[in-house]
């Protein structure tokens, strides 16, 4: 028996399904960015820095719109919330077209197929461009494939109060170049009242990620490695690692400690309360953006910066490389537009302006010539030393490995276990994490 009502419903359904298909076949339905469908590009940007928001909304997005005829909507997400938002976005299918994050997150996102490989896009760039940001670009490589495009660099360095150097007879124009000499300088700069340090010689970061970055810096600067080349085994508990950690522990333990920041939370405080600004230390191990904020909080301070250090007879090396990086969601329907957005902020002029407006280190080594870099010693030192900066291993489960290592480093720094025990125990747990992430 024929059902006229059902036939009408079928016709209506066919019309509903067919109309958009017909429209997409006949009409353009796409914008200037390759064959991408129309619509604003959705960007999730890490950090809520007002200067960064102004740059994106007032400079970058208008320039992108002018170049492509397409709008872009940026959502600024606090760094610690970025992974949470991405988890929710990816699991619900509402992720952005372009996402920003730090290199530490890249390998895990790749492991779950959440990042688009960028190699074919990078092939479109000039060789000179690639060479210009090669160091930072390496931070986004997983198993030989690029997934993250760096837009800002970073690097750990020692900033020091030149007046304190003069006060104790050290020459601020000839800063130390080795960790051994750094300890001696810190000893000379430390001010003690009985057994209490009233002014530290040097302060290193004391929260887990900072401890790992500090140790890794010392490890590399002593010729050691974190993991084997294929990332299948742990190498940080090598003799080089133990020596590096012994040096790190000596800052806090023994007869004459020079750092009283253990367990401290100074990196959560406003720049004006940094121990360098309050003169509770003479030297600080931090990143250029933090030093920029410190200089803004204490413009009268004669703050200077050391080149990347090494242990005696070894090559200088420090934690660094890419800071903020941009990536493309493989589920995005606007991948070409996403790449155009990314390359726009990577262009020399635009990237220098971004760095200057926000206080970052430009990602291109050629930025050394720019007025901004020349006028800002912390940024200039970071750019000059960019070849010595290295990033953490890009392996799945990295954040767990980092925090596990930090946990044992903290125990060693508090003299609860010896450096060798701490590194061996950390290595055993990290090997287990490597095995879990296969």
């Amino acid at each position, binding site marked *: 028996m024929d059902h006229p009502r059902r036939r009408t419903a079928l016709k209506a359904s066919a019309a509903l399904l067919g109309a958009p298909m017909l429209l997409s076949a006949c009409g353009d339905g796409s914008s200037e960015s390759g064959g991408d469908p129309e619509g604003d590009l959705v960007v999730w940007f890490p950090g809520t820095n007002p200067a960064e928001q102004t740059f994106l909304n007032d400079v970058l997005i208008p320039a992108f719109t002018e170049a492509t005829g397409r709008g872009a909507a940026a959502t600024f997400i606090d760094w610690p919330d970025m992974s949470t938002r991405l988890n929710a976005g990816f699991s619900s299918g509402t992720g952005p077209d372009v996402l920003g994050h730090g290199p530490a997150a890249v390998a895990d996102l790749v492991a779950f197929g959440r990042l688009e490989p960028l190699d074919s896009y990078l092939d479109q760039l000039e060789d000179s461009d690639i060479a210009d940001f090669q160091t930072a670009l390496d931070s986004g490589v997983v198993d030989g494939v690029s997934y993250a495009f760096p837009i800002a660099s970073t690097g750990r360095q020692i900033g020091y109060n030149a007046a304190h150097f003069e006060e104790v007879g050290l020459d601020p124009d000839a800063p130390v170049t080795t960790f051994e000499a750094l300890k001696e300088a810190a000893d000379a700069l430390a001010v003690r009242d009985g057994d209490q340090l009233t002014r530290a010689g040097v302060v290193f970061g004391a929260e887990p990620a900072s401890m790992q970055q500090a140790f890794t810096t010392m490890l590399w600067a002593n010729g050691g490695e974190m993991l084997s080349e294929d990332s299948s085994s742990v190498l940080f508990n090598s003799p080089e690692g133990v020596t590096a950690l012994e040096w790190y522990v000596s800052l806090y333990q023994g007869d004459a400690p020079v750092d009283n920041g253990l367990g401290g939370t100074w990196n959560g405080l406003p720049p004006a309360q940094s121990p360098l600004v309050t003169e509770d230390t003479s030297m600080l191990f931090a990143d250029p953006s933090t030093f920029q904020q410190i200089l803004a909080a204490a413009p009268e301070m004669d703050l200077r910066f050391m080149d990347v250090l090494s242990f005696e007879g070894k090559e200088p090396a420090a934690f660094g490389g890419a800071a903020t990086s941009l990536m493309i969601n493989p589920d995005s329907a606007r991948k070409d537009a996403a790449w155009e957005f990314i390359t726009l902020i990577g262009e020399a002029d635009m990237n220098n302006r971004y760095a200057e407006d926000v206080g970052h280190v430009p990602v291109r080594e050629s930025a050394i010539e720019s007025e901004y870099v020349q006028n800002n010693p912390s940024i200039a030192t970071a750019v000059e030393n960019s070849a010595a900066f290295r990033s953490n291993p890009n392996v799945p489960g990295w954040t*767990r490995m980092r925090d596990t290592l930090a946990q044992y480093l903290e125990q060693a720094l508090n003299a609860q276990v010896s450096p060798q025990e701490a590194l061996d125990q950390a290595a055993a747990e990290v090997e287990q994490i490597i095995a879990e992430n296969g």
Partner: protein
Amino acid sequence: MIFVAPAVLYVVIFQLLPVAYGFALSFTRYSPLQRGAPTFVGLENYVALLGDADFLNALWITARYTLQVLPVTVAIALLLAILANRPFRGVGIFRSALYIPHIVSLTAVSMIWLWMYSQNGLFNELLALVDLGPQRWLNDPDSALNGVSVMRVWKALGSNMVLLLAGLQTIPKDLYEQASIDGATRWHQFRHVTLPGLRPMLIYVVAMDIIYLSQSFAEIFVLTSGGPLNSTTTVNYLIYTEAFDYSRMGSASAMAFVLFAFIAGLTLIALRAGRER
């Protein structure tokens, strides 16, 4: 039936289903980043927790934090409620001033306390006035949890005081008059009139404090990030890192349900202890 349907739907969709989903997740290995369905692993997550030193430490820290903040908060709040129950000039301002910390965001309050505890913060400045050296309030594993506890006592006083004040005002005044005529001292009046009359509200305050304190997160996140040496890592903070830093939702869900059992156990003990004999 139709009238209660919206409420029933709300409870089912927004409260029961998420809890049931969380419980189901606790038997799986799952990352929100993965494209496939969660992998069923049975009791693996729960068994792993038994041997997880970090989790057992977090459970101990949670118990210690709850049990050290709770009695101090309730005792001081009771004292303040008795004071606020007396008629004196400015009693309204007194009550409001004590209640203000409760209405300020815990995160904002934690930031202010972070500054006060810092090397050059208010507490060390006060010590300097009496020629005492600076203390590492939140930087020392031996003192960090106590530092967080002091802040939480201050924060919780207002709400507890208001609840206990409401409880005090339900006790009939003539009971005190009769006790006074019978020659009862202030202490006897407190012991035999105030405390029994306040018992239902006290039990409520204690039960709610156990529930809130056992789930502490914001103050830990802001003040110490669980350190130093995990000395302030509560179970809720550990759940956060497990779920959002490491994307291990199955393991985090198992922790959440063990925490639920822990809170339920503590609350039941409190309710039984407070039951009228």
